[in-house]
């Protein structure tokens, strides 16, 4: 057989390769200093992320390794999000590095960096095999990270749960992929789009297989995105895992899942998004999951007393909102999703950073221990309020624009064609549930502000934790007042997915 490797262009892959190397450097650095590097390791890791960002900015677009690695506007945008998430996660993990894992700093940081590398590969992949590998490279280090507090039952429990559920979802996804491969005869997603489009009709006659593959893929990806009913791992893992890891999971991992979803479902199976009564349509399926996510997530979050679990359910709900945009396969759908993810990065990472700082100081993750925080730590309380309001979608914060953009995309889609009118209902569900959402977000604010007493805790301002909060704050406000540039940036993404002519 004639087998030919595709052309390799390392320049296109430079950021990933660099970061991969840097991850090893960080581990070695920690080892080299006999684990006495202090917080220097952390700064080294941050530095690596910054450098990667710089390299990223000068990386050309184009194919790096055939279809397996293709750098375009979409992957670029998401890579920024991944780097940002890693940056903020590492920035807020200095506290635990100081106290809890002082002997494993290197591994911890290295694993996060490796996971980031995985995500970046994922974002560039246009082929099922490399996509799968990217996905696994993303998740496997996070299994470890989740269980990183070795003597903490909660953490270990989170790790094992994440592992089992994650592996199972991988299996489901793979099973779906295998059918997809069988149907189209290729693992190249762009090629697959062509193949499926040309032989479309015959698949209806085969019947079961496309349907099965669609359902399995949705289920597998639903795991990554924590869409009900595949969401149950999320609260447990968020609660048990170290807070920065939970933060990274909620943003980075979710963004990775989104990218995978977009790659497979939109790049590969765009033609399956059609008449909702067709057996191989995935639109309504995802729509129902999204609706369930918004309802379930928001309702369940109302009664949470643990802020991490609350944020977990909130992130389930947020995934639902994001999927609304995903379902709008038009010129703004994907860009709205990307923008949403971008704002979510700041708001959620900021919120988790505060949770991490608070946990470091007090050891508590209960919402009620935040009582009276506004008196003792006004900066953190104010920032937390801003994050909560942004998550709830109150203008003029970034979260509002994201929601607006997503809903706008869906309404545009719904208005464009009769068969997509059901999206109106989805938007309706999204809007109504966003009112419920305000209730529990406001509850945090209420706890911090409305009690007359002072909190017994005073959170110190410290680098880089406070800096992370500040970045989040600035991001949420700045991209609320000036969302234009980022939106412009994101508006190139649908073209990259072939949704509109570039």
């Amino acid at each position, binding site marked *: 057989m004639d087998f030919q490797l595709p052309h390799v262009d390392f320049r296109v892959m430079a950021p990933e390769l660099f970061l991969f190397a840097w991850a090893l450097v960080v581990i070695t650095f920690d080892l080299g200093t006999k684990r006495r590097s202090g917080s220097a390791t952390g700064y080294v890791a941050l530095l690596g992320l910054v450098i990667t960002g710089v390299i990223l900015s000068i990386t050309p677009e184009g194919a790096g390794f055939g279809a397996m690695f293709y750098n375009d506007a979409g992957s670029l945008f998401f890579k920024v999000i991944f780097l940002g998430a890693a940056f903020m996660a590492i920035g807020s993990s200095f506290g635990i590095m100081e106290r809890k894992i002082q002997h494993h700093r290197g591994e911890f940081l290295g694993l996060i960096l490796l996971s980031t590398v995985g995500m970046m590969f994922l974002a560039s992949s246009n082929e099922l095999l490399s996509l799968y590998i990217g996905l696994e490279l993303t998740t496997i280090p996070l299994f470890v990270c989740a269980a990183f507090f070795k003597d903490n039952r909660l953490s270990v429990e989170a790790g*094992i*749960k994440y592992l*089992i*559920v994650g592996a*199972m*979802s991988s299996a*489901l996804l793979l099973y779906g992929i295998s059918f997809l491969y069988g149907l189209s005869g290729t693992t190249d997603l762009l090629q697959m789009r062509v193949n499926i489009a040309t032989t479309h009709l015959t698949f209806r006659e085969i*019947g*079961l297989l496309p*349907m*099965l593959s*669609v*359902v*399995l893929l*949705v*289920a597998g990806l639903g*795991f990554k995105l924590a869409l*009900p*009913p*595949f969401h*149950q*791992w999320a609260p*447990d893992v968020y609660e048990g895992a170290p807070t920065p890891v939970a933060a990274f999971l909620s943003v980075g991992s979710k963004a990775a899942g989104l990218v995978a979803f977009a790659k497979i479902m939109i790049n590969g199976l765009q033609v399956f998004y059609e008449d909702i009564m067709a*057996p191989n349509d995935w639109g309504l*399926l995802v729509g129902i999951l999204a609706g369930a996510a918004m309802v*379930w997530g928001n*309702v*369940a979050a*109302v*009664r949470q007393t643990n802020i991490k679990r609350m944020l977990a359910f909130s992130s389930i709900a947020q995934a639902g909102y994001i999927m609304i945009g995903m379902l709008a396969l038009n010129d703004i759908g994907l860009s709205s999703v990307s923008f949403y993810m971008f704002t979510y990065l700041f708001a959620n990472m900021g919120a988790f950073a505060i949770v991490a700082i608070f946990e470091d100081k007090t050891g508590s993750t209960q919402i009620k221990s935040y009582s009276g925080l506004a008196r003792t730590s006004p900066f953190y309380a104010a920032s937390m309020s801003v994050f909560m309001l942004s998550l709830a979608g109150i203008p003029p914060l970034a979260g509002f624009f994201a929601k607006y953009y997503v809903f706008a995309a869906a309404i545009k889609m719904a208005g464009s064609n009769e068969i997509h009118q059901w999206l109106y209902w989805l938007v309706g569900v999204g809007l109504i549930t966003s009112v*419920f959402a305000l*209730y529990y977000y406001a509850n945090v604010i209420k706890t911090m502000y409305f009690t007359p007493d002072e909190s017994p805790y005073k959170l110190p301002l410290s680098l880089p934790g406070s800096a992370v909060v500040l970045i989040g704050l600035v991001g949420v406000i700045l991209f609320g007042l000036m969302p234009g540039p980022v939106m412009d940036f994101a508006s190139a993404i649908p073209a990259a997915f072939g949704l509109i002519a570039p």
Partner: protein
Amino acid sequence: MSNYAYLIALVPLLSFVMIVFFLRWKEKLAAGWSIASILASWTMSLIVLIETLGRHGEPLEYFFYLTTFKGINFEIGILIDGLTAVMLMVVTTVASCVHIYSLGYMKDDPRFSRFFSYLSLFCFSMLGLVLANNFFMIFIFWELVGLTSYLLIGFWFEKKSAADAGKKAFITTRIGDLGFIVGLMMVGAYAGTFNYGGVFEKVASGQIPTAVLTVMAAFIFCGAIGKSAQFPLHVWLPDAMEGPTPVSALIHAATMVAAGVYLVARSMNLYVGAPEAAMIVAVIGLVTSFIAASIGLVQNDIKRILAYSTVSQLGYMIMALGLYGYDVGMDPHAHSAGFYAGTFHLMTHAFFKGLLFLGAGSVIHAVHTNDIQDMGGLLGKMKITSVTFILASLSIAGIFPLAGFWSKDEIVAATHGHPIFNIFTLIIAFMTAFYMFRLCFLTFFGKPRDQHRYEHAHESPRSMSWPLAFLGFLAVSAGWVGIPTLHGFSSFVFFGEPYHTSFHWDVMIISTIVAVAGIVLAYLIYYKKSISADMLAEKFRPIHTFLYNKWYFDELYSFVIINPILALGRFLWTFDARIVDGLVNGAAWLTIVWADIKWWFDKWIVDGAVNGAGWIVSQGSGLLRLIQNGAVQFYALFVLGGLLVLIAFKYEDVYVSLEWPWLSAIIIVALGLLSLVAKRTASREAAAETETEK
């Protein structure tokens, strides 16, 4: 002067402002200023009157637009014709007397200057009402007199009854105003203007359908019902006697309550255009007059008797006006004395009723009680008061040649052609004479029934007695302008088309007989005591009680209207808090309940399954031992269940084309589900057993 007639109203307003802002603490100056302004108004009114006479009653109108709302002009303007001129004179005259009288009456009151400021405000409002040239403006002043009336009735607001009375007066008259507003809305909607002339033109040219006009006129009359205390809104006026007596004299006898009569007279053209409405007016006037007079027969409070008398006399006037509207409306060439009689009686009544109230005030001032049963024999002690009071009583009873005689005769004459009205008018005249002299005899004649009070009684100071004397003069002479052959008053208010009248000898004689009969009966019962009042009361106990309790109107209203409304308010409040709000909170509550259900589900089903499995395993119980579970596996199971549902949902025709291997795969997965069910059962049993163990 007529061109500056607005000054007549503005001078008192200035006085009000001055007193409120600058002269509050200088009582003497405040009172002086107030009196000076009303005297100035009086002088100007006099000049206006003379000028109007000089113009032979040519109406004079000028105005400016307050604002224009697309099609409707809202204007502030002055209209001076005979009616206005007369009313101006009446108001300023009585007001001047009352102002001066108050100097003495209110002497030691802690809010002396405030009282005068209110009086000035009232004069402004009342004069504005009279001067107005359109319905909008008259409504504004209409409400303002209501406000001042409220303030003055409740002047001694520490007294709960006074505060209550003020509130009652305001709200009751507002109910009438409600109709007035509806009437005004109709005027605005159908006539497109509020100007009297404009509206009447529209009416005259037939641009407004008669049915609409009838309703409109009836609604406008509602205003008069409220303000002039006509049935069924008459209940506030007797209560309003809680106010200081000068107030009662000025507002609740002479001027404000006459505003309703004035309004009907002013808008007479409407009623002429809508005779049915005019008939309503007449009937209500008669009914009111009768009811009030009958109640007046048995009351003991001197001011209340006068109040019912006022209501009765106002009913008289309104009836006369209504009859005029009806007669002329039915036959444009009919000769009816109604209009002339109503306005004439309005004038004379203002004088003698004002006098009666001031006299009553003087008496009360002297004996510190309102109850006529505690008085008696005051004639000797209070010369001027007694004489003027008796004069006024004679006047109201209609004894020749006093003022009341002339005007009342015209009213009786106006009922010509309406026998029922005629008879009832005479009955009322009889009752009037009777209760007035019952009052006089009990108060001024006979033996003092309360020696202590009697001894302390004394004639009032000159500031109080002089106005009495002056009004006494008017009570005697004011009617002379209306002596039929002089064509005085009729040509005065009509100018141009005077009502040609002559002496109705028959009417005069009959009414005089009736009046004298009433006086004689009162004399026999209360002076000679040849007929025992108690015996009479005993004999007609049910009627007496009925009348004494004022036909139970207050009780009826509070039972039928006030209490239900208050109850409705309370009910709606509860409704608001429980139901309307409850719905909203219910939605929120449901969310939380939903969250709770989910929690319950997780706790008892998921957790129960887990715990149950653990328990089963630890107990080593047989069959279920093989089937174990941990939470994480439950999650996986949940997923698979979801997956199956998705598949089923997606693919109904999958069932028919299902091949055996797929089937077996599904069966295997289904087995997993089955194990869940088994565990759930087990966990329940386990829970139950744990319960029993405990």
